[in-house]
């Protein structure tokens, strides 16, 4: 909304915030009279301030009471402008500044409709943000895949390099011919495992996003490191004939989990790009807009990670689920994610879409 268009609401209202105008004897007398007249209005200010406080907590008596706030706001602005000129260092000015700020805050508070906001976020905004971030998603995926291949090649060629990516315990377990995921359910219950995994994955995703603040480099490192680790571990498992077992374990939850890593990396990359090449001139403003926009995707990522965490806790470690069922679960969940993020799942028909 343009504020300039509405400026003449109080013609001639001064905007200076300090320094009273030097006065002659005649203007001093006039100012004294104005001060007295201004102080007569203190009960009105009190009433306006009480209304603003009441409305801030959603306690309007009726529509007229709520509408009165707009008049109060103009009245407070008018009197504050006078107080700034006539008594710049007074309790009157302090009080009017506070009351004006409260009225402004109450007047400009957005309507609170959490249900509608959530519906709009999940139905319209997240698919829209995903479409807008398509180039970033493609780049993040490319980096992740390339580093995964690089990690695979490195450890396949030089197996001793596995020490850079995996813990000594994991290396020892694989060298004994076992996967570290075997028997995991004997140690930790599924529900606890799910909770631990999804919490860890959500934190990693949030880090990948926040690390975009370092001009995108932090996100790049997190994506690259995760890709290298995945490739390296797969290569090391393959060297010991365990790659098929690892694939069986990963496929139900990994399709979405690894995709979410790329999505949060894309969100972080968008934040980084806004700092490297600010599209709105001001770097901070561009950063803020990119963070708020791409941050919506993180909400979808968190929800998707809850699903993959549950699969990883309840499905992946079980030995009685055949590969075909694991593939159906993994690919099915991934297709569901793609359908949602591309808007296919939530797209409304043209009759109900409303005006463009």
């Amino acid at each position: 909304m343009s504020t300039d268009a509405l400026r003449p609401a109080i013609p001639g209202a001064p905007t200076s915030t300090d320094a009273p105008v030097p006065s002659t004897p005649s203007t001093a007398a006039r100012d004294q009279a104005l001060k007295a007249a201004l102080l007569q209005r203190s009960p009105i200010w009190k009433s306006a301030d009480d209304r603003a406080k009441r409305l801030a907590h959603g306690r309007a008596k009726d529509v007229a009471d709520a509408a009165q706030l707009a008049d109060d706001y103009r009245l407070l602005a008018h009197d504050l402008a006078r107080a700034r000129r006539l008594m710049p260092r007074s309790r009157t000015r302090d009080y009017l500044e506070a009351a004006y700020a409260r009225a402004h805050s109450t007047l400009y508070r957005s309507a609170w409709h959490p249900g509608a906001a959530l519906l709009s976020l999940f139905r319209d905004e997240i698919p829209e943000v995903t479409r807008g971030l398509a180039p970033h998603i493609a780049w993040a995926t490319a980096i992740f895949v390339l580093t995964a291949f690089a990690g695979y090649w490195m450890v396949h060629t030089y197996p001793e390099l596995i020490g850079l990516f995996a813990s000594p315990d994991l290396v020892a377990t694989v060298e004994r011919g076992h996967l570290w995921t075997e028997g995991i359910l004997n140690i930790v219950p599924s529900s606890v495992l799910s909770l631990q995994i999804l919490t860890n994955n959500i934190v990693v995703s949030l880090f990948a996003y926040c690390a975009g603040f370092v001009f995108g480099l932090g996100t790049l490192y997190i994506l690259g490191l995760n890709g290298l680790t995945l490739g390296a571990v797969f290569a090391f498992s393959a060297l010991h004939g365990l790659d098929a077992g690892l694939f069986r374990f990963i496929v139900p939850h990994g399709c979405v989990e690894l995709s979410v890593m790329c999505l949060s990396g894309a969100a972080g990359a968008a934040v980084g790009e806004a700092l490297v090449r600010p599209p709105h001139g001001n770097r901070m403003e561009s950063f803020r807009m990119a963070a708020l926009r791409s941050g919506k995707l993180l909400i979808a990522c968190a929800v998707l990670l809850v699903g993959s965490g549950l699969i990883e806790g309840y499905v992946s470690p079980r030995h009685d689920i055949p590969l075909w069922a694991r593939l159906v679960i993994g690919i099915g969940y991934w297709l569901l994610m793609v359908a949602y993020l591309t808007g296919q799942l939530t797209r409304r028909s043209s009759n109900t879409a409303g005006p463009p």
Partner: protein
Amino acid sequence: MSTHGARDLIIDSVTGVELALPIAGPGARCYAFLIDWHVRAILFAAWYAVAAIIYNGRWSFAAPLDPDAKWFMFVVTPAATLYFLYHFVLEIAMHGRTPGKRLAGVRLVSRDGGPPGVGALLIRNVFRLVDSLPVLYGVGLVVTLVTREHVRIGDMAAGTLLTYDRSEAVPPAHTSEIELIRELLLRWHSLEQAARHDLAVILLSRHGIDANDPADAALRAQLDALARDGHK
């Protein structure tokens, strides 16, 4: 919208009269954070202690050697949720404030002077991951010290600022009240000390001023300031 000398956030208004919000410095920010940290630490500990006693069935806070799902779901997860979602939930519920911010006299505002939206608060709190690095909010503190508007990275990302609330500002005395105060001041020496003390306390309390120093001279000075509308 602009800032004047890192003191005030100046916002254009449709009325033509700029809104001036004083920006809180690192001191007020740290003060609010320390209070909030203690509140959430107490909440965390209280939940953990009560839930652990109920879980163990005796006066013991110890975690079991082989913790089961019930331990995590009933004891650990709610306590961790209280600790980590404290700021986000309370900032939404209290329109940009928390108990710590309220005590420090500050509140969060967006750059248009209104309370921040849910999305902005979410982003602001997600960026705590970066601001809290490496320890004790080191990154956030340094950034707050070096930025003109004293904001941390989360504030930059969310477009929020911490401003003084000025909720303690009290309305000026009405003209008739001022005449009453002046009358009391004129008759000050002719009244008995107990009587003038009582009258002074009543008049000051009407304007939200606590007569915390009951000395005769201090009361008179406060009344004098009130009669002159507290010109500083």
